[in-house]
């Protein structure tokens, strides 16, 4: 018997997706998906925030800079925000951020905003699977390398000068 019978293993690209889910709707929906034993792609790392209005665009850019291939934002359906208007704030920022990301050569499918109510576990499943498929097709995100990037992470401690604070 020949020794060398193993086939070459071609690893499929597995996207890393950071998901910011609001506590009251989308996170609850993903919890429900879990307790209902629904299966879906395991590529998301979910970060629970109290409200989609808490999602600073800097969170999204930082996720992309630190290795995410995509970012999924989940909030309550319009009109259902636990804090009344937080999801609209998210929408306004996201709409502007999308324009910036397009200018920076980042494909539209990589950053996605979805309204998912607490009962819509099937929607968490569907959106996650769909996004993973889309990003698999796009391939890994390659941002341009920042020289001496530590300068960015240790933001300088600033001092007051030239006038009283």
């Amino acid at each position: 018997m020949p020794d060398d019978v193993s086939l070459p293993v071609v690893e499929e690209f597995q996207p890393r997706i950071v998901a910011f889910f609001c506590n009251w709707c989308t996170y609850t929906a993903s919890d429900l998906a879990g307790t209902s034993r629904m299966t879906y792609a395991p590529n998301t790392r979910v970060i629970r925030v109290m409200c989609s209005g808490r999602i600073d665009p800097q969170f999204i850019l930082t996720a992309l800079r630190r290795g995410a291939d995509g970012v999924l934002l989940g909030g309550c359906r319009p009109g259902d925000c636990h804090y009344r208007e937080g999801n609209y704030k998210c929408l306004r920022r996201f709409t502007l951020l999308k324009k910036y990301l397009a200018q920076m050569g980042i494909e539209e499918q990589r950053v996605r905003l979805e309204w998912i109510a607490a009962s819509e576990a099937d929607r968490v499943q569907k959106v996650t699977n769909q996004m993973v498929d889309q990003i698999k097709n796009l391939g890994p995100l390659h941002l341009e390398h920042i020289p001496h990037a530590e300068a960015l992470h240790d933001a300088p401690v600033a001092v007051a000068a030239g006038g009283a604070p």
Partner: protein
Amino acid sequence: MSDKPKAGFYWCASCGGCEESVVDLAEDILDVVAAIDFVFFPVAMDFKREDVEAMEDGEMTVCFINGALRTSEHREMARLLRRKSRFLIAYGSCSYQGGIPGLANLYPREEILRFVYHDSPSTENPEKNRPQPHFRAPEGDLELPSFDADVKALDQVVDVDYYIPGCAPPPSLLKAAVEALLSGELPPKGSVIAPDRAMCHTCPRIGTKPEKPMIKEFKRPWQIEIDPDKCLLAQGLVCLGAATRDGCGHLCINANMPCTGCMGPVSRVHDHGAAILTSLASLIDSNDPQEIEDALDDIPDPAGTFYRYGLPHSLLYAKCGITAGNGDA
């Protein structure tokens, strides 16, 4: 030569405005030159690179470098001046964060060279010549600096001690920095020598700043008659003061023009443009996706507007793919 502290003032990819800001010290410049000796200042004085190379390491007390870094010469000079100076200060928006030259990180090098040397309407270059780093002329070999694939801020090439923001920096900050250096009462390394609060905080129009979302559409300054007493945001202008560091002396505001963000972010912010984006988008008075999109159509160039002075210092740094196949040595 006197035993006064020695200083240098050098420029990289720069417009000369930072040198102007030294002149803007007015009579205060006399105190500065009485206290320190400029030993390298290409704009104003006739010292050469060889003079710097001949210095001991750390011989200059301080060197101010302005301008972004894009060529091999910029990088060489930054490393040389770093070695020869005890304190290296990134002076002005370009050196601090990449500045306006940093917006070239939206384009691949080839596209820039092609436009500048071939396609620009004011260029006549039928033989499609381009400057070469090496050229053999009958008189001898000529060398030019090479042109990097991307634009960097000073701290992306060498270690920087302090930052002085502004385009150009206000003379008051230069004076504060010189006084701190002379007195030895220095802030922690890495400090930005400017107040750590938003410009709005001291803006003379703060009393009329809207507290609630109220913008239906954004305006350009030429589209409206600007009320000189009312908050510019309240008039629908894209004013970046809410997310930009103070210390500029409100020069633009006093000239009835909106803040363009030259002072960079405050210390808690990692990405200046994202902070600006958040502050502006939050002011849109609509919950309707289409209306929001329509209002934002009035901001056609978010990258150029929000990252005007700091794309290389932002989280994304450059447009994806611009350096592909173009790696720097």
